[in-house]
């Protein structure tokens, strides 16, 4: 496994327990270190406050609560992230359309590629 990858800490924000496990498993098997998972916005924000995070995978709808404040906190720190959603991609709030959004259920190979692109510094999202 790539040493650089294994040092990367990826925050998982997902409110459905089993889906969160699956994302954790995917990230672990890709060699990332998982932070979380957080099921709510406040949990995610305190994880961001209290520890270093290199990237994040954010479910947009957390039991009715939107994860955009988490996205804002990540943007403020320059941490790249990926949205995941079970909704149509067109349902992403217009202010966040420039960020990578993956359709749930996540496809391991597509998540791998998306994270790799995010974590190349020159390819960082807008």
């Amino acid at each position, binding site marked *: 496994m790539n040493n650089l990858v294994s040092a990367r800490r990826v925050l998982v924000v997902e409110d459905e327990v*089993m*889906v969160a496990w699956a994302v954790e498993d995917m990230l672990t098997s890709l060699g990332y270190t998982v932070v979380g998972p957080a099921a709510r916005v406040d949990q995610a924000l305190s994880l961001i406050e209290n520890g270093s995070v290199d990237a994040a995978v954010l479910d947009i709808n957390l039991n009715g609560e939107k994860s955009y404040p988490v996205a804002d906190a990540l943007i403020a720190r320059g941490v790249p992230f990926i949205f995941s959603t*079970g909704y149509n991609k067109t349902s992403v709030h217009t202010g966040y359309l420039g960020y990578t959004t993956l359709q749930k259920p996540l496809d391991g190979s597509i998540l791998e590629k998306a994270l790799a692109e995010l974590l190349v510094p020159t390819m960082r999202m807008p």
Partner: protein
Amino acid sequence: MQNDPDKSGSQKAAEDEVEGFKQELGPFVVAAETTRMAMVFTDAKKADEPIIFANDSFLSLTGFTRNNVLGETFKSFLAPNCDARALEQLEAAFKDASDGDPELCLKRQDGSIIPTSVFVSPVCDERGDLVQNFVSFVDLTKHRQEQAHLRFLLDELNHRTQNTLATVMAIIGQTLRGMADDDLIAKLEKRVLALSKANSLLGAENWDRVGVRDVLDRILAPFGLNNGQDCKFAIRGENVRLQPKVALTFAMVFHELATNAVQYGALSEPDAGLIEIEWSVEPAQGRELRLRWREVGGPSVGPPQHKGFGSRLIERGLAQELNGSVQLTYDPSGFVCEIKMPAPQESVQAPS
């Protein structure tokens, strides 16, 4: 507009004109005055189409008084930022050259906006000259609300479906990891994933038709369809639109074909092979959709030892479910799958 000092004159003229056709058309004017459909007449001899008659329904729809309305131009009752195309349609309709009924928003007296469908009927005099336009409105507020609610329900349903399938994948992984071969788990997860991708495509299209190309794009993405120069697929065909059931079956079939290609066929050796996917709608026997998946440049292939999920799905699923026929050819130079099925009606997407 209510404070126009010239109002009284134009209003008077309008009222006189209404009085004129009231006398001529007695019962029809009463009908127009009392119907629940909002209606106005405009003076077509003037360029800005001033309103010369408005019925009670129009007044209650817009909240204006008759004094506010008569003599004012038709356009002064439209909400700002109306759709340009709808305005063109309105102009055409006013000139007795209708090219469809525009949907336009009216501005109410309290500033709120009402979406309406507008019907314009020209009224000509004995010489055939356009003298008035009769304009009626159908309030689309409730229709729009119902549409929005349906959209919301459909989004929720799609979201639930996607989350359920994500959970099924998680259950597979959590149950089998450590107990079963990782390749087997991955195979199972990927089949569920293919199903969920087809569902999400259909969800995005409101469970209406989905294009063959859209299905291929979604299903073949993890197989490197978007890898630019490294792309191992050559795809050719119009975006023929498939019914939901056909799209689901195609999605699963393409997934199985691509998985087989990775395992045994053209994608099993790096840089060796290519997959050509071509289809067309042929006029033969009604209209027939013919699709060919042809692998070239891979290792020599032979028929499979046993028929698993993939070949059963392809042979039986397609043949039975889609009323089509499938021919699988294990040519040493490369595997070929040919599908023939009745083409969906109006199946080619109109150019937008």
